[in-house]
């Protein structure tokens, strides 16, 4: 047996590896080893070095992403097209790295002041980000699955970070069980697809759909299962039930991370699959996306209206925002719409990431003083912390999609892409989206009202101390939110991706 392995090994030819293209992943992988080792050798008083190391790793990984973005050859395909670095993946990689960096800034003080060891925290965080970065380039069912697990498993553990807190345990457990369940469903779907196409390469999947002269039942079933799996990941209704509990129980910076980066990673995979593997099967997934989108934004919104805990409200808000991201996908199968649908998803995610992280930064800062998650504890914030209240107002208004703050351009591009389809379904969905964006103000407005118009609940108006790292995070996200809103050309410039490499027909 050993003999046959050696024989196979001699036949094995090393594949072409483009180290420039893989540099971000390599830096991240090296960084997470360093972080893990450093934790062993640093004594308690110098643990803060680890968080800085994590931050530097992420910034270091940004460098090759920048050079990749600027380099001439825009598409670098490796391993027979299973791992591709193109415009889409570079933009998304940059987003994950910057979002990760902001999460590090959010975590620094939070973890330091907590009662738990902090070493693994940073290691797990980096692992998860590495998984996301890999997801952007995966163009094969296997690598998508590996990336997905790579980003999910550390996230399960991070959600259960505060191990002596029952809520945190619940958060991690729910997230884990439902996540694994979703993975299983997805894997089953993938196996069906593999059976139908005899290949795991996404491009081959697409070809097999046309080659067999139409869509087979096996394809359709496989596609539905895979989409359901990712619907869990992006917490689309009715697969959202884990999100509010997980968000509430997890440490706040991790909640921010889950609601932004983890969700975006799910969308990245979903978009890659729809555009590269199943463009010919739009008859299957378009109606599915339509229903999913309507349910997600409507249910997310309506339930959010009833929340009294700010993190739970933000959880439902992020569910409903996911519905808006899904909107253009309901018409993305039409060849003349697909490009604008892709752009809209990317633009929406960029803006949403900046805004939502910013809002969580404010929540973390405020809860340092109020020690409460109730919305009523935000009463009169404007009277004693006008800066934070103004920032929160900016982020909330952006989430609600009010110009001239970032959120509107995301919603706008989504509407634009829906209406460009010219189909009745597109128009109907746009109208539902429009109504929903008004309803959403109901709960974003609740927080604003609390901050601006209500009295301070306990009369305690001590200043809110914002640590430097948190201030930096607030600064980054606020500037991004404003710039995206006033000069939307910046967001649309990065979102102007003609197509995902390997997409069918290209």
């Amino acid at each position, binding site marked *: 047996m050993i003999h046959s392995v050696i024989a196979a090994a001699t036949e094995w030819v090393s594949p072409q590896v483009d180290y420039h293209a893989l540099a971000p992943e390599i830096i991240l992988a090296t960084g997470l080893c360093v972080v893990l080792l450093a934790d062993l050798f640093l004594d308690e008083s110098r643990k803060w070095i680890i968080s800085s190391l994590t931050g530097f790793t992420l910034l270091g990984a940004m460098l090759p992403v920048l050079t990749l973005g600027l380099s001439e050859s825009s598409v670098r395909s490796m391993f027979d097209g299973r791992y591709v670095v193109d415009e889409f993946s570079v933009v998304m990689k940059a987003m994950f790295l910057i979002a990760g960096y902001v999460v590090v800034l959010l975590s620094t003080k939070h973890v330091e002041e907590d009662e738990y060891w902090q070493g693994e925290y940073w290691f797990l965080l980096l692992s998860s980000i590495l998984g996301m970065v890999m997801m952007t380039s995966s163009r094969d069912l296997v690598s998508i699955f590996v990336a997905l697990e790579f980003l999910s498993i550390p996230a399960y553990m991070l959600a259960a970070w505060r191990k002596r807190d029952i809520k945190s345990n619940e958060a991690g457990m729910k997230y884990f069980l439902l996540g694994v369940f979703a993975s299983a469903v997805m894997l089953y779907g993938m196996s069906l697809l593999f059976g139908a196409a005899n290949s795991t390469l996404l491009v081959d999947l697409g070809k097999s759909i046309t080659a067999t002269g139409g869509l087979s039942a096996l394809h359709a079933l496989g596609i539905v299962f895979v989409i359901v799996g990712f619907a869990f990941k992006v917490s689309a209704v009715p697969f959202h039930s884990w999100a509010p509990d997980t968000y509430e129980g997890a440490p706040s910076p991790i909640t921010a991370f889950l609601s932004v980066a983890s969700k975006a990673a799910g969308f990245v995979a979903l978009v890659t699959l729809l555009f590269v593997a199943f463009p010919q099967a739009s008859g299957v997934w378009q109606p599915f996306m339509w229903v999913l989108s309507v349910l997600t934004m409507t249910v997310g919104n309506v339930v959010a209206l009833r929340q009294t805990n700010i993190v739970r409200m933000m959880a439902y808000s992020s569910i409903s925002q996911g519905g808006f991201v899904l909107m253009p996908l309901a018409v993305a199968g039409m060849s003349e719409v697909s490009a604008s649908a892709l*752009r809209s998803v990317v633009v929406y995610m960029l803006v949403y990431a900046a805004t939502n992280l910013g809002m969580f930064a404010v929540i973390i800062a405020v809860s340092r003083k109020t020690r409460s998650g109730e919305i009523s504890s935000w009463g009169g914030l404007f*009277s004693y912390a006008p800066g934070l209240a103004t920032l929160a107002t900016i982020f909330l208004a952006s989430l609600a999609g*009010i110009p001239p703050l970032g959120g509107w351009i995301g919603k706008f591009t989504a509407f634009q892409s829906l209406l460009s389809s010219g189909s009745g379904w597109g128009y109907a969905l746009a109208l539902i989206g*429009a109504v929903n964006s008004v309803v959403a*103000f*109901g709960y974003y407005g609740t927080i*604003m009202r609390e901050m601006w118009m209500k009295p301070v609940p306990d009369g305690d108006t001590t200043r809110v101390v914002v640590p430097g790292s948190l201030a930096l995070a607030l600064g980054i996200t606020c500037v991004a939110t404003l710039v995206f809103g006033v000069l*939307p*050309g910046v967001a649309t410039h990065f979102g102007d991706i003609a197509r995902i490499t390997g997409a069918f027909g290209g």
Partner: protein
Amino acid sequence: MEMLRDHNWMLSVGTFLPLLGVLLLLVVPKANEQLIKKVALFTSIATVAVGVWTLFRFDFGNAGTMQFVDEKTWIPLIKSSYYIGLDGISLPLYFLSMVITLLVVIYSLDHIPSPGNPKAFFSLMLVLQTGMAGTFIAQDLILFFVFFELVLLPMYFMIGVWGGENRQYASLKFFLYTMFGSALMLVAFLALFFKTGAESFAIPYLVEHGGALAKNVQIWIFAGMFIGFAVKVPMFPFHTWLPDAHTQAPTQGSVILAAILLKLGTYGFVRIAIPVLPEAAKAWAPYIGGLAVIGIIYGALGCLAQTDMKRLIAFSSVAHMGFVMLGISTLTSFGMTAAMFGMVAHGLITGMLFFVAGSVKERYHTLEIARLGGILKQMPHLGWILGFSCMASLGLPGLAGFWGEFPAILSAYSPAAGLNETVFRVYMVIAALGTVLAAAYLLWLFQRVAFGEPKPEFAGGGHGHDDHAFHDVNKFEWFAWTPLLIAILVFGVVPNLMFKVLDPAVQVVLSGFKG
């Protein structure tokens, strides 16, 4: 279309100067209220100075032509650009928004409503000013939309933070109504964009190509815009946010709301909906006219039933905006010019009435009509200013209100070709009845509030603890009000000052209807 591009920096400076003031305000410490007031005052004076300079530079002989046109790339991906310009329709409103903001700032120097915090108050006011001015110069639908929405949040906070007892309910209602309208408006804008070939959001481009759309497509797109603009005007039956918002808003908020914000809606009809979609406008006109006269009568009856002075003035806005919309719905240059005049006149007069209401409230701590009385005896200046404004508001010839109302009614006698004359003549008669009711409720208000003897509870000079409870009009109020009073009189005596600016521009707007 011919355009003048000289001095095109002027509009941008005039629009964004208030934001510069906001930035300055941000660095001034909250405690230094004197400096905050100075910065706000100086900013709004500088803004008006730019506005005056714009008036000087404006080529009145070419009022129908877009002037000071500037076009810069903004969002290339969605083919929207920073495209601005000013013509005879925009000019009065653009300048009015600057002047009103300055007057409101002057008034606020002495009247910061509770709970104080002039820094935030003035910042919001200046942001509001940028949004208002920007809406009137935008020549691109997306730019228009962004400015149109920019006014929402500041007004929401102004009502919600500095407003009356029921302020939270009123501010949320205001916000949700307006946002609902603008969401549908945005969908309509996008539909228009794609139906005209997805080439551009520029209004001139759309005016050129919108007319070629099939009639039923136009009607649907118009429906979306109609809801967006009609909520803002507000037209019956979308008006229910207005009485609440006005009643609860602080004086400054009410003045800005009445004088400028309501005009964003009517301006939208004149600038966008009607010229871009002429066929739909014809189809919709009888319904718009119908809702307008319902608004006139409903608003007037509402006024007669009010017990609160401010709420009464708010309902009178519904009636007055009904006259404006009636003028617009005739689709004639006569009616539309009257409507534009009516917009400015209503801005001046109702703004003035809200100022007076605010000062009455400050002195008597109530606006309950039944508790007021004898203002003319206690404060003759304030009483006479109230009387003057009421006369102007009911459309007394010789004052500005007349020239908005009377021609608007007259224009309904012969609406544009293709519209049913009988229907519009019926509207004319109903609207004329509305003026009688207007005289009734305004004179009755004046009589109850200003005539007679002061009520016993106030006869002694008001609440002892408040020193200037019954001081007549003070110098801040004189400074803020005199320009409005003069303007009401001047435009009443020489209406041609404004008609000659408006008319050529209205002709251009309606050029799609000839032939």
